[in-house]
């Protein structure tokens, strides 16, 4: 089984890297970009028997810091 975890800063948490990317896009002439948020994608190769609940636990314990980040899980 494969799982893909998306980790993003929560809404309301300033994302200075996303802001820098937005400014750079503006400088390149992409003037219709109103916001950029940058996150992480983590791909997991899992042995048989692993469950989505296991991945949720991984997110809670390590992959995301839920003080500042939200996550979503795609099972592939």
């Amino acid at each position: 089984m494969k799982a893909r975890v998306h980790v993003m800063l929560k809404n309301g948490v300033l994302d200075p890297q996303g802001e820098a990317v937005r400014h750079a896009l503006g400088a390149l002439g992409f003037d219709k970009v109103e916001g950029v948020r940058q996150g992480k994608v983590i791909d997991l190769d899992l042995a048989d028997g692993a469950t989505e609940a296991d991945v949720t636990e991984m997110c809670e314990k390590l992959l995301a810091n839920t003080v500042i980040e939200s996550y979503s899980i795609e099972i592939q």
Partner: protein
Amino acid sequence: MKAAVLVFPGSNCDRDLAVAFEQAGFDVSMVWHKDSALPEGVDIVGVPGGFSYGDYLRCGAIAAQSPICKALAEHTARGGYALGVCNGFQVLTETGILPGALLRNAGLKYICKTVDLKVATADSVFTQGYAAGDVIGVPIAHHDGNYFADDATLAALKDQDRIAFTYGDNPNGSRDDIAGILSENRRVLGMMPHPERAADEGHGGTDGAAMFRALAGMVAEA
């Protein structure tokens, strides 16, 4: 008086922190991250600055899962003292021993300079050598020192007088200019600035030395 300084792969302020403890009169042991216990009778644990595990995933996230951090959490849960500086502060938030998190600096730049720090409370073993309102010069050296906590957490920190230091001129976007915070029992301090880099005449400033002297005095009395 015993201090233990944790050493992770990528720690680089561990020896500086050990020297500051030693100069204040502590016996210091260096403790490797794979150890699962602290030395017997340790009064205070120092969690040093640096780039533990190359800052992979998030600063301090991997270090927070190391065996020695379980022992650290048990030590603080028992009421033991701990001081986390810079990456050590990040480790303390990642373990959940202190609330909040450290984000990338708002200006995106790594900043290395001496800054003015305001002592926000003198009511802790770490800050009792200062007076509230004192302004001291202490170096910062970080890329991810932008303190974030939600509104409820910030309100609790203020109500409980747990903000230890604030920046005079906020360099990194930290909420409410926060540079360092205390645990609820006031025995754990996490701070981004480096008091151990302002503890000896050779450093160009000694404003951080009062913290280590006060800690030594406190432990000697206990």
